[in-house]
């Protein structure tokens, strides 16, 4: 163990590195792999006859590395430690430290939530998508390989309350709109835009409507479990005069939160062309068989319904589309680390040979495959390159279709990075708080019930095993009795259960964006700074607007940080010998660097003028500065 890593680990409690062994655990492998990438970039400079940019200073590297990997600025303690230690290997060690910290998966979860449009619920849906959100969150935490994650989502079936099957939320999210779901699948995992072909052929030679339906046939027949045993009971309790009764609330648990949160139908492999089908290659209503539009062809029968279409689709996406599947994810990771995709937009696949630096893109594809789609290992290599360490570039890329490899482009922090950084200043390392969990208890009228330990997972298993109405009636009556008993004080003991539940956080809690409601409420700072509403793929915005500035001047920042004497930031000033030292500490905490001589003068002037009132003014000014808001 290298000295700085030991120090950092000593200072902060770390989780052990999760997941299987990777070649990227070997420092020598990482060094060589990073060097290889740099050599391709260097070749680009030679070819374009351009000077190689300088490597940036420690302070800029520190802040950039934190924001890119764990999505927040360093705490004052972390910053001081890194800046003060004199060790040539400290950058590599910092990357190891960051990738092993829980902040890494928090930051990755924000990315995955945007990409997969993960929300806690949706309008008109009586169930909850939180088990699915938790599945994605856990997948990031365990660093699930990207191909496994893809398969897990596309082939998911079962019930949401079973943590191993909660990926079914991928389909529940798009209940009633399987074709849109498929378009998103193509876009997310393969960088193929097929949404237009839902209705018509692409006039520019892209996907045809027939091909779209052939692909849709793989996923056809996704449905909820049959509600037949429950139908009659539901109709009875749904009569107007019974809608306010406990019977109705208990029936809702079964109707919306068990059936409504189940996914069956593995994909029939056949689908009917729509009634408005307009081309000569098929008739409206004609049954056609599943067939993949590119890559190694996979097809299914148009004669009989199968039940494994989605597994076949998942297999094709992850293993039979040539460079397409690894390229799209490799490029997305490049975008995350370097600030811009090798090709842009990142959701439109480009063959390596068509990019402006084919050798690099080819290599990245190979590397992704070699690392078995281990996204953390892949990012580790990129973070260790010189290319990542170039001085910031304020200008837009000179290559319209991708990265010009001329240093990370200056860009405003994402909404989540801003929030996570602000709560770091207000409360210190936010990853010491436990992450959000799923409340699996039965909820009646918004109140959780204990029911002798019978939770939604258990109830789901029991309900889904029932196939006759009479059996269901018995089950329903018994459940109703149990609920009545506990509500009248009989079954009690809810408190004990409560303590065992993992926490859920509301909009006002100062926890990581990844643990807040998804999306955050509309009056939240996250919304003001452009968090995605997670209705469409990657809809986050970094556009400046006047409300953001008002928030920084007068809102959350003032209340929770500047004018809050208990803020972590102010604690770090304790024991400072003089005003100059205080100014230095404030700079390190907020901007991760010491002030320049000129800045010292400005701030000392302020101290002379305002006395003790100077500190909130200085803190306020620093947080309002563009240097705070932008990733360099």
């Amino acid at each position, binding site marked *: 163990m290298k000295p700085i890593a030991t120090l950092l680990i000593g200072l902060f409690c770390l989780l052990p590195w999760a997941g299987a062994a990777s070649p990227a655990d070997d420092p020598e492998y990482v060094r060589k792999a990073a060097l290889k990438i740099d050599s391709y970039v260097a070749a680009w400079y030679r070819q374009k006859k351009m000077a190689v940019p300088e490597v940036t200073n420690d302070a800029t590297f520190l802040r950039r590395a934190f924001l890119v990997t764990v999505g927040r600025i360093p705490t004052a303690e972390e910053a001081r430690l890194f800046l003060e230690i004199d060790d040539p290997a400290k950058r590599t060690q910092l990357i190891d430290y960051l990738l092993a910290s829980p902040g890494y998966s928090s930051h990755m979860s924000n990315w995955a939530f945007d990409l997969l449009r993960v929300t806690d619920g949706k309008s008109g849906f009586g169930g909850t998508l939180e088990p699915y959100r938790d599945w994605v969150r856990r997948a990031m935490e365990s660093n699930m390989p990207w191909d496994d994650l893809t398969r897990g989502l596309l082939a998911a079936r079962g019930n949401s309350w079973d943590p191993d099957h909660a990926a079914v939320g991928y389909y529940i999210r798009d209940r009633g709109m399987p074709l849109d779901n498929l378009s998103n699948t193509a876009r997310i995992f393969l960088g193929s835009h097929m949404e237009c072909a839902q*209705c018509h052929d692409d006039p520019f030679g892209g996907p045809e409507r027939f091909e779209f339906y052939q692909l849709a046939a793989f996923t056809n027949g996704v449905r909820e479990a049959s509600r037949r045993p429950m139908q009659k009971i539901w109709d009875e309790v749904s009569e107007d005069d019974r809608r306010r009764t406990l019977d109705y609330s208990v029936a809702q648990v079964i109707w919306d939160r068990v059936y409504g949160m189940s996914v069956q139908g593995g994909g029939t492999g056949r689908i009917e062309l729509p009634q408005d089908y307009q081309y000569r290659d098929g008739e409206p209503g004609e049954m056609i068989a599943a067939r993949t539009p590119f890559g190694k062809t996979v097809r299914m029968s148009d004669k009989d319904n199968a039940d494994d279409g989605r597994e076949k689709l998942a297999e094709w996406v992850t293993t039979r589309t040539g460079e397409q599947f690894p390229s799209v994810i490799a490029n997305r990771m490049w975008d995350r680390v370097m600030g811009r995709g090798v090709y*842009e937009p990142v959701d439109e696949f480009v063959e390596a040979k068509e990019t402006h630096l084919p050798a690099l893109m080819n290599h990245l594809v190979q590397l992704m495959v070699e690392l078995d789609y281990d996204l953390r290992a892949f990012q580790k290599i990129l973070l260790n390159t010189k290319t990542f360490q170039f001085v910031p570039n304020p200008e837009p890329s000179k290559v319209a279709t991708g990265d010009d490899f001329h240093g990370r482009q200056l860009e405003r922090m994402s909404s989540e990075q801003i929030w996570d950084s602000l709560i770091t200043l207000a409360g210190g390392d936010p990853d010491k708080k436990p992450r959000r969990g799923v409340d699996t208890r039965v909820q009646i009228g918004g109140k959780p019930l204990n029911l002798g330990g019978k939770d939604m997972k258990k109830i789901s298993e029991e309900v889904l095993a029932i196939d006759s109405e009479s059996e269901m009636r018995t089950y329903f009556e018994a459940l109703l009795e149990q609920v009545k008993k506990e509500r009248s004080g009989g079954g009690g003991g809810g408190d004990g259960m409560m303590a065992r539940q993992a926490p859920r956080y509301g909009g006002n809690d100062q926890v990581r964006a990844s643990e807040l409601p998804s999306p955050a409420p509309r009056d939240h700072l996250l919304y003001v700074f452009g968090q995605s509403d997670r209705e469409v793929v990657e809809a986050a915005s970094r556009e400046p607007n006047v409300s953001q500035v008002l928030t920084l001047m007068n809102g959350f920042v003032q209340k929770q940080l500047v004018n809050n004497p208990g803020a972590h930031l102010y604690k770090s000033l304790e024991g400072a010998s003089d005003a100059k030292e205080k100014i230095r500490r404030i700079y390190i905490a907020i901007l991760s660097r010491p002030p320049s001589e000129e800045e010292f003068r400005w701030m000392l002037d302020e101290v002379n003028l305002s006395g003790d009132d100077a500190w909130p003014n200085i803190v306020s000014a620093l947080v309002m500065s563009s240097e705070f808001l932008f990733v360099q």
Partner: protein
Amino acid sequence: MNDHLKLDEFSRRRFISTAARTCLGVHLFPLLGSSVASGSLISGAKAKSVIYLFMAGGMSHLDTFDPKPKKKDVMGPLEAIPSKADDILVGQHLPKTAEVMNHVCVVNSMTSKQGAHEQGTYIMHTSYAMRGTITHPSLGAWAMKMAGRINPEIPGYVSIDASPEMTGGGFFGAKYAAAPIGSASEGLKDSRRPDHVDKEAFDRRLALADRLNQQFHDRYKNADVKAYEELYQEAVRLMNSEDLKAFNLNEEGEQARKLYGNGRFAQGCMLARRLVEHGVRFVEVQLGGWDTHYDNFGAVEGRCREFDQAYAALITDLEKRGLLKDTLVVVATEFGRTPEIKAEHNNGRDHHPSAFTCLLAGGGVKAGYRYGETDATGSRVKDAPVEVQDFNATIMHALGIPHDKEIYSPSGRPFRVADQGKPIMDLFA
């Protein structure tokens, strides 16, 4: 280039503190942050402002403003009711709206080729198809660019409950983007100086931040960095404006509250009216949840409950205050929904871009008028199709913005306010 940026450091700082202390700054620099180009507007245009109500998710035309009462298989359980305008029927869940239809112009022949939400929403807001290489300005940004602000002290473009991606400035830059409001009842959050911070301290904070920003901007010439610098000026001006009260719904009386109702969308409509009253050029209010693939009839009933009273109140209120004649109220959506009812999705309706309905009211358009027609099942446009671009050109024409004026993007490509669309002149009174 704004004049204040040319001033020396001392004047700059003095400007900021002056602006912070009084609203004098506004009179000294009346055009700050806006570019009023009124000279190039079409004369005789009636509308000054636009209230753009966007029904996100794809509002079913059949269950709202294009019912087909003779076709039971298309209508399912839903019935049509007569309205205050002869010849115009509306869905049964819109009883209050029915009472104001004599002010409304219904465009039943909207048609589009974009059948996915993102693409459909994008083209409705920008008139252009989504491209990976460029972001087009939204309608409100065009209105700001071409017509400028009416009131220079408050934002000219405000979005309520809308998505920041669809209300952006596009290649015009952040200066033209909407000021977003997440919750209408809270108004423009944080627009007052914190209680415990006195004016002196507040000004000094700004001056310090300004120095830091100046330094950062000198180091990195970057459009977004500059945008933030300018936004501070704007924010200070706004904080000191008398018209800040435009954002405060608490000033509305009991009667108005009763008229609009308590829903979230209702608050948005009420706020939109206040904003227009105070000279905001373009307000978008969004009402989501129209993506009724599953249980269409239950969902439509719920959406109409949100919409009906609020919309009727808005029209009534604007009319009563004499504002309807120069305010164009638009109801738009990204597409309609299929005449076919999907039994397997609990009677759902899917996306249907080839025929849908949008509404216009006030701002010089015909009242109680129905334009265009769909076939017997509401599946195709039978008469007078209106492309998205034509519809947007019509909105812009109402504001006096010429549809054929070319504006160049920073990369030198020519764009028009509604691409190749032309205003539908028959819609104007």
